């Protein structure tokens, strides 16, 4: 299968690989996927205490090139956004940006799930209730 140039770029030069201190109250961690499915994403955000802006985002992904690119792109998009705006990131935006073929849409879904899961972890740590995800993915 041919990958798009953007997928190849993110795969070859992944942005924001790394680990944030998951015990910090300002850090939210999302771990989604499963080894037997061939995809595991860990996405972390660090939220500024005062402004509520995501000041750092890091990821590590076990998966195909599209999964790596989806999570790399997600961290780029997250940085500088407010937590509320981050919740608006839709998997189809990732699909469009990376020109993912239909068989790779699940990679974008996983990235969206990772964002939501990281945000919820942050919310729970800070005494807020988790956001329910009622979205249906197609």
């Amino acid at each position, binding site marked *: *299968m041919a*990958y798009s140039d953007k997928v190849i770029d993110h*795969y070859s030069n*992944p942005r924001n*690989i790394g*680990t944030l201190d998951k015990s910090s109250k300002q850090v939210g961690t999302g*771990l*989604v*996927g*499963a*080894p*037997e*499915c*061939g*995809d*595991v*994403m*860990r996405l972390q955000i660090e939220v500024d205490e005062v402004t509520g802006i995501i000041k750092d985002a890091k*990821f*590590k*992904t*076990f*998966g*195909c*090139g599209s*999964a*790596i690119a989806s999570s790399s792109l997600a961290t780029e998009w997250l940085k500088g956004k407010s937590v509320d705006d981050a919740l608006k990131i839709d998997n189809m935006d990732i699909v469009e940006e990376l020109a993912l073929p239909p*068989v790779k849409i*699940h990679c974008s*879904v*996983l990235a969206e*799930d990772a964002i939501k*899961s990281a945000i919820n972890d942050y919310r729970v740590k800070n005494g807020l209730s988790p956001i329910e995800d009622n979205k249906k993915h197609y």
Partner: protein
Amino acid sequence: MINLPIYLDNNATTPMDPRVLEAMLPFFIENFGNAASRNHAFGWKAEEAVDYAREQMAALINADSKEIIITSGATESNNLALKGVFEMYAEKGNHFITVETEHKAILDTCKHLEKLGAEVTYLQAAEDGLITVEQVAAAIKPNTVLVTVMYANNEIGVIQPIKEIASLCKSKGILFHTDATQAVGKIKVDVIGDGIDMMSFSGHKMYGPKGVGVLYVRRKNPRVKVTAQMDGGGHERGMRSGTLNVPSIVGLGKACELCRLEMDADTARISKMRDRLETELLTIEESYINGNTEHRLPHVSNMSFKYVEGEGLIMGVKNIAVSSGSACTSASLEPSYVLKALGLDDELAHSSLRFGLSRFTTDEEIDYAINHVKEAVNKLREMSPLWEMFKEGIDLKTIQWAEH
């Protein structure tokens, strides 16, 4: 200077040997005759070339040239053997024995026959990919007509105990077929010595052309017959009709001859390179060889690199052409059924690469491949959350994964 990408997927197909092409060329335009034309020199010439090629094929496997049934490839040979026996020996019984790690050309043919009333036993391979003759013996029933076990596996290269199984079948009066596509031309295969009744193989896995293969069908002790699956002019002793593909047959004959003459030298050289590749890659932490290493083809290596995903790895090693046990690329997201059948963890089955060397592989190419794979594995592990957890001593089995 080496040319990139490097081809290390020779279990999928091999390049044709230039000497094979040379042998074929006169049979496209100059000598284009139909080998079945009995009335003129055009036909005689074609027939002579086919007869000679059949001798070359027979010599490689220690058969008689009359026992060579030419087909379009191993898939057709497997279909003809299984379906042909099912029809021909229907009165004798309807039970087949095979192995769950066979090629799809065997497994899907068995599934088809089950719909037509066959009963099939699928033996389970051990963790090293091998089955035992005792397993076969235990599966035999009064209505068993055929045992089919592949000579060597296409994904991991393990060589089954063919001689023992064939001898058991003979003692029980059951036919024995083997899909020897990966073995013929690479290791010594002797239909008499091994006691094989029927055997499939293909031209394009042994430096010959694509679209041509053989079903060996024994003529003596016992005389085996299969019902034709392609009806027509009664070619190939009535078992496979269709005008003979003379250039390809000549090519396969030449490929067989080259393999017969050069096998020992090729094997010595190729297995040395394969072993070096493996030894070097095993220095990568958490890397494993899949399948038995004692009974194995000399040119194959299937390795898993834990905590990296196969498709991502394939993308990382873009300068070498290899295949992955992870079939994500085919959209099924299923790891290899062969590796799963060996009881491999999903992580390992997902993170495997199959290296297949050929007579054209060079030491420089192996050096390049070693470094390329090492770099890719290290890079992907740097970004793998599973590798990080492993390094922190977390048992991945204790984690509640959110399956999707």
